[in-house]
């Protein structure tokens, strides 16, 4: 089946099997920042923004995204202009193996978009669905809080 959706700001028309999950469709189209960690919605490695809300793309059928807007880590920034969250994860040595990082960045983006100056607890809650076996979460939390600290109170970015 053919589905039309917006991915990282661009209108696309993709051929998908009716049972294909969004993770697979994205990866098949070269968007490899969306990882497979559990394929059961428990690890957040495949998180993307669907109309601005964080969803595990392994539990969303590609067909369900038709007519909607999907943002992946590739849509947030690139080498020339990384997103402030991507830059903060780099600056805070919050990346070890990096497999969970795009999912964490997506989750943090979803949080900061609605709550520009979250509390530490809110940041911890936002990352709670993103098990990371490398970092122990200390530096990822610091990275998100550092970006939040640059946000003017109440102003969404």
């Amino acid at each position: 089946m053919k589905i039309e959706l917006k991915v990282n700001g661009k209108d696309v028309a993709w051929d998908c099997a009716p049972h294909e999950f969004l993770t697979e469709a994205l990866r098949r189209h070269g968007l490899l920042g969306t990882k497979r960690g559990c394929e059961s919605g428990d690890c957040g490695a495949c998180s993307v923004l669907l109309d601005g809300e964080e969803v595990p793309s392994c539990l969303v059928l590609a067909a369900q995204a038709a007519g909607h807007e999907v943002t992946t880590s590739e849509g947030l920034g690139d080498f020339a202009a990384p997103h402030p969250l991507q830059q903060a994860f780099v600056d805070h040595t919050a990346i070890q193996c990096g497999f969970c990082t795009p999912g964490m960045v997506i989750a943090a983006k979803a949080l900061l978009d609605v709550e520009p100056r979250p509390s530490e607890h809110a940041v911890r809650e936002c990352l709670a669905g993103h098990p990371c076996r490398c970092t122990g979460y200390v530096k990822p939390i610091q990275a998100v809080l550092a970006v939040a600290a640059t946000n003017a109170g109440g102003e969404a970015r």
Partner: protein
Amino acid sequence: MNKPIAGAPDGEAWDTGAGSLGEVDRYTAVGKSPERVDAMKLALGKGTYADDVALEGMLHLKLLWSPHAHARIVSIDTREAEKEPGVRCILHHGNVARIPYTTAGQGHPEPSPYDTFIFDRKVRFVGDRVACVAADSPEAAARAVAKIKVAYEVLPAVLDPRQALLPGAPVIHDEPEATGLPGFDKARNIAAAMEVDHGDVDAAFARADLVLERAYSVPYQAHCALEPHSAVTWLDEDDRLVVRVATQVPFHSRRILARILEVPVQRIRVVKPRIGGGFGGKQEILLEDLPALVTLRTRRPARLVLTRAEEIVSSRLRHPQLLRWKSGVMKDGRLVAQELEVLANTGAYGAHALTVQTCTAGKTLPLYRAEAYRFLMKTVYTNLPVAGAFRGYGGPQGFVALESHMDELAGMLGMDPVEFRRRNVVGPGDENALAQALGEGKEGPPQRFRSCAMQECIDRGMAAIDWARRPTLPRTGTVRRGMGMSCLMHGSGIPGVDMGSARVKLNEDGSFNLHVGATDIGTGSDTILSQIAAETLAVPVGKIVIYSSDTDHTPFDTGAYASSTTYITGVSVKKACEGVRRQLEDAAAEMWRHGGDPCDRAALVVKDGAVCRPDGQRLSYADICLSTFYTHDQHQIMDHGSHMSFECPPPFAAHFAEVEVDTETGGVKVLKYVAATDCGVAIHPKSCEGQTEGGCVQAMGYALSEDLTFDAAGRTLTDGFRHYKQFSSLDLPEFQTILVPSFEPSGPYGAKSVSEIPADGPGPTLLNAIADAIGIRIRELPITPEKVRRAWLAKQAEEARS
């Protein structure tokens, strides 16, 4: 004190000699925390992992796993499966060569038993390999797997290591080909065994004023690297087999694949891309043999990626152990005798069966001075999932026993647990009493501790947690608080075994290519080795272009395990760069001589990317390279270095925790955790912190929440993240890492290891803190709320009776 121990073989000795912390202030690249060299591409989500390639015509593999804990395969019928559209190849014991090997990714010869076949006529646990289908799509492969008909003769299974040792127990490895090191006794289900006495143990116990003996139990733990085991294979344009695999050990993978696939080493190229975490689980030749076989048979690219459930059930786990610790102590608090007995469960196969358990003893027993030591160990087979290497490699198990025991001993003596440890813990200049007896499957080199800041780790950890508050914590009512601590040591590489190498060459913009066999699995070693190169060559880290772990294009390295990369490979990088630095000075001297302005070669120094003369003249590396490439005295400035160490300097640490125990629910909340670590000079301090934070949080899950459970038939019940509870960001306590500097003379720029020691601490530290909070000594992990609550109720009942 600052010399290696007398008698250590010195043929390969390498030592910075009189280094000291004073020189650290002059370092320009080491001791800083630059941006990690791979961080931005990972943050952006670039496709850099094993499974991030999709090749034309690639086949997808799915496995049929054993539904039985122990069974003989009577027949396999693949006729219906072969009819499934898109199926290209089905592998099973009937069509694959039967060559015994070990999946343990260790040096040659591996000290693990050869008890594994690519496919066998027998299955030994629920989740063992039965057959593999390669098809055009994953869905077709899965449909075909479901159509394979297997007839099994189900055999009695044994799930408990104690019962596996009993006469008449089912024999799990009855195949004639299985072999192992001395101690291996397959007829009795023993994968490895060892008995060591150091000093007159019985006499020392007889002399002791007090003897304490206690039993402890530690469980399986799953690695949970977020990236599953993944491999993609293909034949390149020269018909050579390329293996792109998530591995910690690319060179061991190539060697072992060559043997079991019966393909010459020179026909195989193993490439390690970025790795999504390993923790020991990828120190294993776990799956790449299957896509490689499919590629060799079909000539098509092949891909195998495990699911999360397969990852938990059919990859590798931490060895569960039953431990018995006995110690003899004098009334003044002086330890005189230490005895450790370990019964470990390796599951169905003996990967790392000997060496994990010798490390259980090797990291723990020598931490405290005593007159005599005894170690008794058996690792037994059971029909449960397979244990292997896991961060800490026996240490987290052993320290649960040792450091719980030290607290209990202090209590018996009426001493403060910190003071008791201070009195007995080793210090600079002490010998490692068991280094020789507990080598890697053979006698090890003797060891003396040189850099050791253990006492300062204790001081600073106590201050950070405010240990003086301990007596004032609330210990009445429903919710009670306590503090605990533990002392730890680990190792840096396997002495006399681990070897790393590096190659460096100069480019005409003054940058350098650094090629290392070392395997960055998320540890940061590519960055750390780049810093060592930058320091030695006097350039910014950005001038180093590192490429690692490709058996065609980088020199050899044993791999990312045993806390060895910084300590071993780091020195090989330094040696190679020192050679390049000499060549740069030679070339500059020749350029000046050729230009009619000769200089004193001995007075030249390198600084800021240039060779400098005392008179202020300088030649940049870029100018030197352009000249040596195109103009005069033409040659490539490059060098290589290899390193192996007979020394294994331990990092030391003191961990402290404050916990809150709810006596009504049994729930334990970690409020604060402090890890003070002496890892020598921290090459990249932020990464050392990250290793400490991550290692500790991983081990907090081991201590409190991670619980692999099995039903009576040996099936894993907790085979997903939803049931197998790791620590999350919400469970993380207030965490403080303290890096306590020391200077290790045998390490690169004073460094030793940091990556494994954090995993040793949380188990005993939290057990001790809980005992302090509620007066109940739990001797078993995981410390689930049920266990705490039951122990609390039993204590209440006992107090009511008395």
